[in-house]
């Protein structure tokens, strides 16, 4: 999985935005930030109100039929030919790489593959397609970075997100010691194997704390839910934030 990301395309005038269910319910501000980052590059952002979840929870839990039902719903909601930008490595991975697996033996596989080829993770789209230039207007700050596993491996888009952070002059990025290790979220894993999940989240939080960073950023709100929940439970005052929100904050 060296370069699993989509090929660069000419700058489009319109994109679809797939907000993801976790962002929709728990991090809508992060979702909005992503939308604003695109809009201020002159892109028209379309948000189909029909959209819901990518279907990953069922796909990973042994319920492919239900996953396909929900997936087909997204196919309908994003029917036109625009690129689809997703502010999550994990959901983007599902839409881009898992849909073709999920539909491998289905009659609509070709339509699914066409849909999947239009998927871009937000930072990937900002760097590769929009070639965004950022100007840092914030105070000096030290942050650390959590790579979600699907952003890191399945989508391989972490370099793009870090390129964007790298453009922020007064932001110092302190890497985690075990950056490549999972935080233990894993969607339904966190409630099906709660003890292991908690142990992993605990170690991740320790790693975050030893960096001395003022906040932890990521492309993925599932992980952030897990990390922020654990930080909060341990009464540690380090905000866990989606990178789009952070970038928007510092550049306006």
């Amino acid at each position, binding site marked *: 999985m060296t370069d699993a990301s989509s090929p660069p395309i000419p700058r489009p005038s319109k994109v679809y935005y797939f907000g993801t269910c976790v962002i929709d319910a728990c991090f809508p501000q992060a979702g909005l930030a992503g939308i604003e980052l695109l809009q201020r590059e002159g892109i028209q952002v379309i948000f189909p109100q029909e959209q819901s979840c990518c279907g990953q929870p069922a796909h990973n839990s042994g319920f492919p039929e239900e996953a396909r039902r929900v997936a087909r719903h997204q196919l309908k909601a994003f029917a036109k030919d625009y690129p689809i930008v997703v502010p999550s490595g994990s959901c983007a991975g599902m839409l881009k790489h898992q849909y073709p697996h999920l539909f491998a033996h289905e009659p609509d596989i070709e339509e699914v593959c066409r849909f999947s080829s239009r998927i871009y993770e937000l930072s990937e789209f900002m760097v590769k397609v929009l070639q965004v230039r950022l100007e840092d207007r914030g105070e000096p700050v030290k942050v650390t970075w959590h790579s979600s596993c699907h952003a890191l491996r399945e989508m391989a888009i972490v370099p793009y997100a870090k390129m964007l952070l790298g453009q922020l002059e007064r932001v110092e990025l302190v890497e985690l010691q075990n950056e490549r290790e999972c935080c233990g979220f894993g969607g339904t894993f966190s409630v099906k194997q*709660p003890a292991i999940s908690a142990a992993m989240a605990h170690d991740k939080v320790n790693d975050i704390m030893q960096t001395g960073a003022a906040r932890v950023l990521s492309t993925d709100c599932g992980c952030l839910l897990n990390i922020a*929940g654990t930080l909060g439970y341990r009464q540690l005052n380090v905000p866990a934030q989606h990178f789009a929100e952070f970038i928007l904050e510092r550049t306006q």
Partner: protein
Amino acid sequence: MTKTADVVIFERNVAKALDDGQLRRNLRSAMTTLSQRRRALFADTEAFEQLRAQGESIRRRALRQLPDLLEQLEGRCTANGIQVHWAETTAEANAICLDIIRRHNARRVIKGKSMVSEEMHLNHFLEEQGIEALETDLGEYIIQLDGETPSHIIVPAIHKNKDQIAHLFHERIPDAPYTEVVEELNAIARQELREKFRAGEIGISGVNFAVSETGTLCLVENEGNGRMCTTAPPVHIALMGLEKVVEKLQDVPPLLRLLTGSATGQPITTYFNMITSPRRLDELDGPQEVHLVILDNGRSSIYGDAERRATLQCIRCGACLNHCPIYIRLGGHAYGHVYPGPIGSILTPQLEGLDEAGVMASASTFCGACEEVCPVKIPFTEILRMLRNEAYAQGESEHDVKGHGYRYTTVEGLSWKSWALYNTRPGLARIGSQILGKLGQHLPMIGPLKEWTRTRTPPLFAPKSLHQLAQERGLDNDR
């Protein structure tokens, strides 16, 4: 939700393992060392990717022709004077070994490391028949002293640190002085084992690769104990799973490099044995008899399914264990079966049935660390997903894994149906998110949320969903 038996047992094992601070420190430090060494050896990622593509294609080519290669292997081995035995079950394999041992009136067996023998529970079986089977690999020797099973497929005693071994030797080996010096501990073990090698009447080993074109059994090891077991006693019994066959001699070097590099970061091991026949007339040493036992134990049913077949590509390097965030925290024993970690999680439910070991397939976050390091590119997440699907598949299942559907309950089935309904009816979703938003932090802590909040603050549902905010901002809905 009612829990299946495998889940209950696993949860108990997990709790115990997570509670054992010493275990977790031992594992973390050992796994870090092994993975660092691996990374250093394969620092040139491009070259590594090439090698690994080669490894994958060698293994896939072998599996494609598996029945033919096995037949050829049997023919060549027999022509070379190796006696070949087929065992469909572990019980049959044990009986074959016992028969050979009895025919030689032997009582003392010395063993090199073999995971297949673990799968057979051979030591236990032989003991019951009054036959002593002594493990001679240092790690295996250590855990045998302590009455344990391997916690790792390559480094079986990795869950123990030096101090624990020092105490163990002092307590269990007669006249062994207490020492924490590694060299002295090694010397104690060597001293003990020397005597046993001399007295061994039957040698048992595993097989890393069996080359069909030449009938050669390859054995990879670091301590020389494997060579002792396969040359000193008059009889050598080699045990292999039927997937261990490769087509050509020239397939071996790349696989060997991948195996040792992935396992311990070594470019090559100290010993590499290639066994092609018993002692020939003009030879001075080596066993007079060599037997090869080829075990099926469910492998042919894995072979029969195109999607499951990749499971058999494995060359048992252990890298997937070393890099697995779950294995690193639990160690091997918590899995409760012979093969732990990612490879165990895909293999065991297929060998023993989902109803016995299906829970192992749920012990993954799909982080993909195993897939990233596996030298033969086994698609773990695909196989794990398939197994999860099988665990819930009602009626006839697509891949017919033993025990399929064992985990299905009406409650869980229904909850996924309503999840699908909720996510395909935007009206419902709108009402739902409004309720969640209103409730905010005042959700009842039941079901999944109860598990979540044992170690985390509850998720904070926003008063307005992104759907609502997007609408308020007048974003185009494309309708």
